[in-house]
């Protein structure tokens, strides 16, 4: 009898404990492409989780848990995911990536619904330039509005391109890059650059025609704005041509978002020169700070054996950006108090993000007041944590790792 009542009491107490834990848990959402570009989304998840694990997933009296939603790159599905986030009274913040289009198309919706969005990976310049002082989207990633010129400069100066051929996907992201890259090319004396656009879901046949066109046009390098899926299709067709027709590719970072390296393995792509933009940090660099080493060892522990060496981390930039961004989030939460009412708390965090009062050392750089209040005219880059000086060009290594070109 005594034993029974003990068990009963234990059950009751554990139930109460569990319900208390549920009540005190706040959810960090991730809305990403878990299907088509799984690697980058997983990298982001790990970045968020490792950063929160450093504070034991507890902050301001709340437990932190994670909810991952899959938009598969579909704008409408992303919007539906956002609706789930908005309707969750315990949803603290939502990370979003890796595609720009969902964020571009849903920017108004996000802002109007005060959905606090952190962007570790999505490059379209438009995303963070919401014309209002109350801007709910914060980015720690490459920003096209400034990356375009970095890519073009690299192509023209480093790769000595004479007749670059712009090959961009037919999406708002592609549109944005077309604009900034065309502008950048003008400074290199090319007013009407050769341009080809392609749709998502491009297949081999279509890619072959495009590549043939580029070769016929006499271009000497390709400026590629594409995600990993279509990027792999295009590169594959280039590799089907004789080796002398393998034009160097200077790419936006989209090709690093998925399983590009599996479809085009090292042995196949080694004859081809592919460079792409990344932020200027990589675990694969020989020189690592004690800080980055510590972060990596935590990642190794966290990944439960999946990652043991830097080359194992695919789409590493997702991890790096998400980790740094989460550090900023944690700092912002620390600066404000959590009430448990998410409407109030989200707004407080938003304001706190714009007013981070101390320097936060991260993987890419040390962040000193990374965000501020947005103003279209005077403070257009207010919600961009990175500046072009953090952009570097990179290549794939032998083990598909990303190697940053250190200058």
């Amino acid at each position, binding site marked *: 009898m005594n034993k029974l009542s003990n068990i009963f009491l234990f059950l009751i107490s554990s139930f109460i404990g569990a319900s208390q834990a549920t009540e005190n848990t706040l959810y960090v959402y991730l809305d990403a492409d878990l299907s088509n570009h799984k690697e980058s989304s997983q990298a982001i998840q790990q970045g968020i989780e490792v950063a929160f694990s450093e504070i034991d997933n507890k902050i301001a009296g709340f437990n932190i848990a994670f909810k991952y939603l899959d938009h598969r790159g579909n*704008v*409408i599905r992303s919007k539906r995911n956002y609706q789930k986030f908005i309707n969750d009274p315990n949803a603290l913040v939502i990370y979003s990536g890796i595609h720009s289009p969902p964020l571009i198309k849903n920017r108004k919706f996000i802002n109007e619904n005060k959905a606090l969005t952190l962007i570790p990976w999505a490059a379209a310049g438009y995303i963070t330039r919401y014309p209002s002082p109350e801007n709910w989207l914060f980015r720690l990633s490459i920003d096209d509005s400034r990356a375009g010129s970095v890519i073009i400069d690299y192509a023209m100066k480093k790769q000595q391109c004479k007749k670059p051929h712009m090959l961009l996907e*037919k*999406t708002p992201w592609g*549109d944005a890059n077309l604009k900034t890259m065309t502008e950048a090319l003008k400074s290199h004396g090319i007013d009407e650059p050769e341009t080809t656009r392609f749709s998502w*879901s491009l297949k081999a*046949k279509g890619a072959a025609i495009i590549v043939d066109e580029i070769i016929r046009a006499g271009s000497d390098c390709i400026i590629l704005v594409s995600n990993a899926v279509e990027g792999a299709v295009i590169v594959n067709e280039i590799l089907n041509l004789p080796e002398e027709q393998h034009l160097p590719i200077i790419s936006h970072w989209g090709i690093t978002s998925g399983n590009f390296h599996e479809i085009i393995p090292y042995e196949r792509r080694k004859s081809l020169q592919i460079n792409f933009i990344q932020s200027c940090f990589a675990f694969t660099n020989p020189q690592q700070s004690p800080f980055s080493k510590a972060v990596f060892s935590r990642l190794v522990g966290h990944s439960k054996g999946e990652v043991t060496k830097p080359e194992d981390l695919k789409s590493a930039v997702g991890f790096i950006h998400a980790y740094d961004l989460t550090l900023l989030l944690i700092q912002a939460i620390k600066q404000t108090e959590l009430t448990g009412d998410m409407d109030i708390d989200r707004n407080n965090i938003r304001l706190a993000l714009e007013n981070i009062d101390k320097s936060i050392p991260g993987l890419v750089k040390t962040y000193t007041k990374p965000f501020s209040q947005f103003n279209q005219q005077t403070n257009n880059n207010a919600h961009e944590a990175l500046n072009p000086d953090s952009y570097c060009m990179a290549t794939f290594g032998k083990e598909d790792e990303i190697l940053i070109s250190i200058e």
Partner: protein
Amino acid sequence: MNFKFFKAYSYKNSALKSFVIFSISLFLLIMFVSAFFVVPKVNELLDFQYEQDAQNELALESALFTRFVVSQQTIVQDLAAYPMLAGAVMLGEANDLSITELFENTIIGGRKSRLVLQDIAGNVVIKTDNTLYGNYAANQLWIEQLLTGATQYHFQLLRQNNAALTFKVSVPVLYNGLIEGVLSSEMTMPLKDIFVTQNFNTNVAFKLTQGAVTINTGTEHIEIHRENSLILAEMDIIFTYVTDDSLIYNGKRELQNTILLVLLFSFTVAFLLFAGISYRGLTQNETGVEVSKGTRRNYVIPVIVAVIGIGASISAFMIATNLKYAVIEKELIFESKQKITTIKDEITENLQFLDAIKAFYNASSYVSRQEFSTFVTPLLFNYQNINSVEWLPLITKQQLPELKAKAATDGFSNFSIKEINANGELVQAKSRESYLPILYVEPFLGNEDRVGVDQAKNDIFTALSKAQYTDVKVATGIERLKTEHGNRTGIFILNPVYENKHLLNKDLEPQLLGYIRIALNMSNIFAHTLNIENSHLLLYVEDITDPNNIEVMYGVRQQENTFFREEALNIAGRSWRVLTYSTVAKTPLMLSAWLVLIAGLAITGLMTFGITYLIRRREIVEQLVESRTKALKLSEKEHRSVVENAVDGLLTIDEFGIIEKFNHAAEQIFGFSAAEALGKNYKLLMPESAHKFQDLYLQNYRNTGIKKQLSSDIKLEGKRKNGATFPIELSVSEMKIGKTKKLSGIVRDVTERVKLEKEREKFIDKLTDSNEELARFAYVCSHDLQEPLRMVRSFSELLQAHLADDLKDDAKGQKYFKFVIDGAARAQLLITDILSYSSISSDTQMLECVSLEELVSVIQKDLLDTSSGIITADALPAIQGNRTQLYQLFQNLISNGLKYQKPDAEPHVHISVENNEQFWLLAFKDNGIGMEERHLKKIFDVFQRLHGKKQYAGTGVGLAICKKVVERHNGEIWVESEVNVGSTFFVKLLKPIE
């Protein structure tokens, strides 16, 4: 002879008559069975078969319809695979002009497409601007099902406009294999292209029902409706196949007629066969073997079996052939239509290429060689079947220098216009007002030599140039196209290009700029069409535009024994005849049907012969039984009369003693009539004193099965009806009939016999007494007479001696004394002989083994002491007998032989013996005086003498003794004799039985 023939003829005639009657009856029976059984049954079967057919047709048609739907789905699916559609649904907007172009320019089923693209929320991303009949509101079940992947596609009936059906096919739009949106295409198609059944419009109709929408192909030509439906679950459509029952009625009538005809035919054949066989039978039966008239009736069944079997086999053959052909033909029609559509679509698709180039020309004021190449080359990637594209501008004489200059800038420094002369050689073109040279050609490589060749003299261009403004595309006849895989059959299609100013200003005459000409690789198109879906078709295409010059375009014409279908295809002014062949030849099908027929006939034959054989056997057995029964009846009759007329009473009882049979004699014996005795216990016939014993007897018999004591000739006491008892003699035998046991008894009334026997016994007793008395008397006589005789003799001798002196001289006294003494001595001898004769009969038969040799030697010694003579004998055996009597026999016979001798002769007796199986035959032969024939029988009687006692001494008893001895030994004695030669006495003595 004549009489025999007449008899045979009349016998046959009567058999024929009965046969004819039988046949007519059979025919009537068949007709009767046909009318009341076969035809209704056939109708029923026909209905059933028709229903089955309809069901099969329904299944086939619905399968064909499903295939049609799937083929449409494939078209839409191909469209949905365009990358920009995935992009658009992912973004939720059609930001891409190419989508608009795709939507506006796509041709499906020969018409401008009507497309709707929806994102995962069901919102319409883009749709074509023409009328849409479908409902594309979000949150519909079908959209949900497509988006979740629950269904592969959605097919919806929208409306029917006269003979055309409008439907919608929706398929998911995929990105990277995952569903991201829905593309719907509305299509309108003539019903006749959907339902390809050959007899559609005449015999059958189709009805499709999906929700509130019903589509039907028009049923006004159907008199009596018969509907068979099934549900196409995937499309949620009720597919109804409507047939005309009036056809069944016609069909029924036809089939009935056929069946009756077949029946009649089969009957006739069977009849003739049967008649033939029977006639043979009749001719063979001349010898008079009885053929029972009822036999023919038995053969109705095999005949019916044969008739029905043959009928069924033929029907099965017809049905099998028709059904299989129908299925193959339908498949062929469907596939053929599909192929034609595919070919048409493929060509139409290629014609769009012409439209594109034309549009390109219309949009540009001038198209340079480079621009032409840039525009055309990527397009050619997509149009693999276009071998080459050419631009043939209409050049006037005045424009020639300008053209040459432009050509020079393009790298054709020596550009000139050439033409092909009458000899087929390429020469410089003659000067004329206008030229139509091939100016641009793509791909250029391999076609360089064609640049500059004038086509103005080409018939088609001549014709076209003369014509008024026209926008039609015109195809040429067969051309040989050079491809990297060798020569291929192709056609040229050309499209005139006009200055488009006239479109803006209707007053302006349209100005011909030139022609775009494409070379279409028809071999590839046909081959590709065939390769889709592992087709079972063969294709043969010929151009029949010019009936005088029919050209083969593709394939080889097949033999007529394959299923084929002919379709006409009109493309750009050319008429082609397309023959599609099923690879399934007719022969193997026919074979299977023939097999059915042969198998059917074989089974029928086997059954018929089997039944006939069985019937024949039964008949033989029956006839055998009949003849045996007759014989049996006869024998039974005989038996019965024997039994009935028997002097002995015959009766049968069962195990319980119940009388079952009681014959006439028994009636006479017992005084009971058969009716009175049958069913009663047989104790009725016994006196009460015997009842208990009989009960015990039967009980014992029942228990042990042993008929104790009762066997044959049992003497019992019977009881007559009047209660008087009498002696009977009974012999009992056991009968086993199956498991039941019966006892049959033969009863004889022995009252008379018993009486006679008693009398005889009494008589014998008397006789024995008298014999014994006589023997005793003889013995006593002879014995008692011995004493006085001896006294007489001895005292006479004493007296003679006493008186001897007195009688010395008294001769007379001496003579008287001699007479007394001799008389006494003879009386003594006689008495001795009589004594021994009588003692023979009274002697008991003491049998012992007697050696005749010994016997004869003893006699020899005794006799030869007192008399002379010779006694000889063969080797004599030892025999069974009474020694004393045999001694008397031999002694008498031998002494007789020695005694009755001629005075001067030496007596000789010889004893010979003959060994027979059963007896010894002894012969005593002497050389004596012999006897006359007349005396031979007398000599064996007692006291018979042939001679005076003075002549030969003797008492006359000797041979009587011999006879008695032989008789006592169961033998015989006789004599053969000849006077003065001698006598032979034969004695036959039986050998003892071993």
